């Protein structure tokens, strides 16, 4: 039995449906991210787990206990907010100890636990400071320690890194993941930043317009998107218009050039979109696989990499891809004809749902 189970969750605000038919099972100690654009319902779902919103339908079960109708202060769920939400009138130590004080724990135990947590977040000398005396990253670490102090069953993080600058964001997200692993706490993380979701999570729930588009490991989500939305939202894609020549053999035509793709379900003669991840495209060195020839439209030298954009025919689309910089490399010139290659199995067909192939995930992002 899963540790956190959301079954048939629905949330209506008047006639507006914010979340619909949301089902999720998370194991104990699992790190699950809700990923999606603004307004997709990810924060609303998180707030329903926290108890700040009541689902219109469905149930939320934590550790075999139905908490759907419990008030937020009865749930033992820790929450970290985007705005930190530290109590401005309290010191760092008082903030961290607040939840324990509410639980009427003895003062010496509170002190001990606060000291432990300050060590955990690497701020042992900041106990007597006030929130306004800390940097944004430090404040968010204190907010994390405060949420962990009560030893919550589930830890919820609502875009906790959004207000921080890029460098702090990366270091703090690694710290969050390390602490989460160390404590083995079931965690739900809301973000609209795909890099965050992919790098942190055991599983990612991609959402759009209140619905789950796909649940999977970061590896599955990125490499085998279940829907056109997931394919376009996660990572960057090159989109090409193609005509189906023969669905059974997977033959397609892109601006008169024939390529092959796996599992084409559209009818012969129909027009579909072929999506290609940039990292799968290579400058032709001959050999097997699909090849497309086009004219170079742009070459950007970005230091360690060179980004090349190729226009394939008139209106069929553009392919943008990167190659590593090499001092011996001769940069291609604009207008020059170039052939790029990619394997048939790398073609994502977006007009129809793409089946996720069975792959071994033993060596996924972990």
């Amino acid at each position, binding site marked *: 039995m899963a540790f956190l189970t959301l079954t048939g969750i629905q949330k209506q605000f008047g006639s507006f449906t914010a979340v619909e038919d949301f089902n999720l099972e998370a194991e104990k100690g699992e790190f699950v991210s809700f990923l999606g654009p603004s307004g997709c319902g990810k924060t609303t779902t998180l707030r329903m787990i*926290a*108890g*700040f919103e009541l689902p219109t339908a469905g149930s939320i079960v934590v550790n075999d206990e139905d908490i759907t109708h419990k*008030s*937020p*202060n*009865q*749930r*033992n*769920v*820790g*929450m970290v*907010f985007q*705005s*930190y*939400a*530290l*109590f*401005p*009138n309290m010191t760092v130590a008082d903030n961290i100890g*607040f*939840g324990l004080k*509410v*639980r009427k724990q003895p003062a010496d135990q509170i002190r001990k636990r606060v000291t432990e947590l300050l060590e955990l977040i690497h701020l042992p000398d900041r106990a007597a400071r*006030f*929130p*306004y005396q800390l940097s*944004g990253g430090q*404040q968010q670490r204190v*907010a994390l320690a*405060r*949420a962990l*102090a*009560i030893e919550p069953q589930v830890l*919820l993080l609502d875009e906790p890194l959004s207000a921080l600058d890029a460098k702090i964001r990366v270091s703090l997200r690694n710290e969050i993941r390390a602490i989460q692993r160390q404590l083995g706490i079931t965690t739900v993380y809301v973000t609209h930043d795909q890099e965050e979701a992919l790098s942190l999570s055991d599983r990612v729930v991609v959402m759009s317009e209140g619905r789950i588009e796909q649940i999977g490991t970061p590896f599955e989500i990125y490499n085998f998107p279940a829907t056109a939305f997931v394919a376009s939202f996660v990572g960057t894609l090159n989109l090409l218009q193609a005509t189906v020549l023969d669905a059974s053999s997977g033959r397609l035509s892109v601006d008169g050039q024939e390529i092959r793709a796996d599992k084409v379900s559209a009818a012969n003669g129909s027009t579909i979109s072929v999506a290609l991840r940039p990292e799968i495209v290579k400058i032709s060195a001959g050999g097997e696989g699909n090849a497309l020839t086009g004219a170079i439209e742009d070459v950007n030298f970005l230091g360690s990499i060179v980004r090349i954009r190729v226009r394939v025919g008139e209106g069929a689309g553009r392919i943008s891809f990167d190659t590593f910089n090499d001092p011996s490399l001769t940069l291609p010139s604009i207008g020059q004809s170039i052939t790029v290659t990619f394997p048939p199995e790398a073609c994502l067909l977006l007009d129809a749902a793409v089946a996720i192939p069975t792959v071994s995930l033993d060596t996924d992002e972990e």
Partner: protein
Amino acid sequence: MRAPGALDSVAKPAPEEKRQRGALWAWIVFGLGFLYFFLPLIATIEFSLGHPTGPVGAEPSLQYYENFLLKPDSEFFPRLGFSFVVAIATIILSIAIIVPTAYWVRLRLPRLRPIVEFVTLMPFVIPPVVAVFGLIRTFSGPPFPLMDTTFGSNIVLVGAYTILSFPYMYRAVDTGLRAIDIQSLTEAAQSLGAGWPRIIVGVIFPNIRVALLSGAFLTLAIVIGEYTMASFLGSKTFGPYLSLLGQNRAFEPAGVSIISFGLTWIAMGAIQFLGRGGQRIQVGGAR
């Protein structure tokens, strides 16, 4: 022949000169304001000393202060003390009503805000004399015969003063609440297990302390000098005493005004000092 630069400096004052001229105007305005506020006060002090028109002659004298401060039958201290008690009761009641209301309206019922604001403005719409007759009529008989006893009428007085304080208290508290992210703070406290009383007393109150203090100051100032309601309710507060003294004596009311003015300022200072408790709070949210 003058250099072009010299001509320019005549036509267009240099920034330094401009700044000095601005500072001069600022001092003139400040001086006028100072005179406007303090001249009457100085005149009142002088008059309270019987100088220069008093029967004692040209010499200033503290005799009139002695009349109401030191005479055993003087009502000055009992009346002033009672007014402070009424003011403190009013402040407590007003905070107890306004803080949860303003908090809840901001947190959950923002659409009700214009209505609540209008309700708190009622004391400006209904003249005190009308309100007090309404109160007397309402509380003179069953089911709430509060006016039958002195204690009961004092309760009515505190209630009436609480309503009088609403416009000031509500605005002060609402401004204080606007300065903090009450939704996140509330939710953070809730997720840590806190119930509503602890959230309001332990999280919201301390973070709007400055706003509460300014609301309390205004309430204190209103209550200490209020005459109409206290007079009609027959309460032995300071306002009616001041009025009575003014009807019968010449120089004493001026002395009483000066003393009450000083005491009110001391009380305000004390509230501010005690309220801050030497603490280093930051109001306005994290960062």
